[in-house]
């Protein structure tokens, strides 16, 4: 019988366990409590020389078991290779639930696993729960974020992906005797059809600032030009925050794609999100509406952003921000 909650442990490009893994494990502990404390497990696909250095990261996070498969070729992620390894491993582990971060790698890998195992997958969930029948009830936004659907799965494992930052990682240590178990998979005759020729890493600082910022000053098309974004930067610096952008601003070349917030960008949940010259299209707000407080500056008093913000000011950001700078 399928048992336990398995979390795919992505190793991110900077060679750390991706933070989403610990966000998922804290959620898995909650779910496990509703399933007679079914074990919480991790799956790690890793180069043999690295396993020992990763073991420490899994201690005190509530994992009952960490399964790992090793192969020299696992140093570089390739879809077909990792899918083959994961499929063989998940068959052996036979979990009732499998959770994966909705990162690029997660979204690339997961549908291959679910399809091969003949099961379903609910992508980009924003809430996970166990229903009265003990099934995974996975809730996700559809229709551009306007409709929420709770989805159940008839097959095992019940699989779901969750974006980073949707769940909070557990803060306190959860002391458990974590067992490390090596699984063997047969990849002897496996030849990947994919060849990775080059990988250029984005600066780590660039990637992480949005995730960790308490205050985000975001600009949209209304910030018009580089001068506008320079104002935002000044405001952000004054507040100890960081700058983000709408997709239109990114397309205008005013900000890097790495700081785009929204459906096709990042999900952020800072303490304070200041939206300047952003209309508040759903594809944008879906990425920021969980901010604790939202403040908007917009010339159009009917802009939809005002429907979701706590404080608003109608006016020209190019006049308002300089005044703010002198008052903060």
């Amino acid at each position, binding site marked *: 019988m399928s048992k336990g909650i398995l979390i795919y442990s992505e190793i*991110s*490009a900077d060679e750390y366990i991706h933070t989403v893994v610990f966000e998922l494990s804290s959620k898995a502990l909650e779910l496990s409590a509703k399933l007679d404390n079914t074990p919480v497990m991790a799956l790690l696909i890793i180069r043999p020389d690295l396993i020992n250095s990763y073991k420490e990261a899994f201690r005190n996070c509530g994992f009952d078991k960490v399964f790992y498969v090793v192969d020299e070729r696992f140093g570089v992620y390739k879809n077909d290779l990792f*899918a083959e390894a994961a499929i063989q491993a998940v068959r052996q582990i036979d979990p009732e639930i499998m959770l994966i971060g909705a990162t*690029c*790698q997660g979204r*690339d890998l997961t*549908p*291959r696993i679910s*399809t*091969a195992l*003949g*099961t*379903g997958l*609910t*992508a*980009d969930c924003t809430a996970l729960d166990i*229903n009265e029948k003990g099934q995974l*009830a996975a809730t996700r*936004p*559809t*229709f*551009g974020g*306007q*409709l*929420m*659907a*709770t989805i*159940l799965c*008839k097959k095992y494992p019940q699989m779901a992906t969750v974006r980073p930052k949707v769940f909070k990682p557990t803060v306190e240590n959860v002391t458990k005797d974590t067992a490390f178990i090596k699984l063997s998979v047969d990849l002897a005759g496996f030849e*990947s*059809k*994919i*060849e*990775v020729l*080059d*990988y*250029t*890493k*984005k600066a780590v600082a660039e*990637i992480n600032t949005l995730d960790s910022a308490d*205050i985000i000053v975001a600009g949209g098309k209304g910030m018009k030009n580089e001068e506008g974004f320079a104002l935002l930067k000044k405001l952000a610096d004054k507040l100890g*925050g960081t700058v983000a952008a709408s997709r239109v601003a990114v*397309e205008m070349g005013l900000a890097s*794609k790495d700081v785009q917030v929204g459906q*096709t960008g990042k999900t952020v949940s800072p303490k304070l999100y200041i939206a300047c010259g952003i209309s508040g299209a*759903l594809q944008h707000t879906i990425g920021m509406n969980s901010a604790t407080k939202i*403040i908007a*500056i917009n010339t159009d*008093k009917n802009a939809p952003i*005002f429907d*979701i*913000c*706590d*404080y*608003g*000011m109608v006016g020209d950001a190019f006049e*308002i921000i300089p005044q*703010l700078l002198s*008052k*903060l």
Partner: protein
Amino acid sequence: MKIVLCVKQVPDTSDIKWTENNTIQREGLESITNPYDVYAFESALRLKNKYGNVSITALTMGPGQAEEMLRKFIALGADNGVLLCDKKFAGADTYATGKTIASAIESKISDYDLIVCGQFAVDGDTAQTGPSIANFLGIPQVTYVKEILEYSEGSVLLVRELDCGVETVRVKLPALICVLDNDFEPTRATINGIARGQAAKIERYGIDDIDLGVEQAGLKGSPTYVSKAFRAPQKQVECEFLTSCDDLAHQIKVCGGLCE
């Protein structure tokens, strides 16, 4: 090179109206072509223009009206259209959709080199259908493709844009790729193109044509099902409009935790 382009009609999610019972008002809801499928098409078309001897078959699983979308792609430069249309396909999740499209490609197109999908569909935004099709066909996939650099000797060279970096990969054909947004100038239809689109014969297949059992398609063939759908909770705040920069500065400090 033979390309199969998978395209989908989606409801225009920017213009949703709600009934009094908080369900989506479906009448009058406009359908648009999934924007990512347009990006996918533009990438495929550039390959065709660059290498010649490339054919593009636009394929969709959807209602009868989706035929118009296929004609539009033919008007813009695709060669053929295939519509998978059957009541028994209705209610498919991504697993059943992938299975249906893969069966159709296997039984009706068999000879293909590259399958091109959009990275996401904006109605569901699951990004799963492409990889599912690839898995059912047993071919490799490359997702998050920003650019197709070249096609040579049975492989394509691709640039992927990922969370943390940019990757250049080569994949052996046949393969499936999922394409991200790109800023190619959208192709415009010519008068001749439109005429070709209108005159084209769209191949139409139902479940009996494509080697698929009834229990494998549509709702029946779907491992997942929706148990509940509800309107996304609106943030329960009333915006307080401020009129002075002093007040605004004060609230920024309070909300940002910069003062007591």
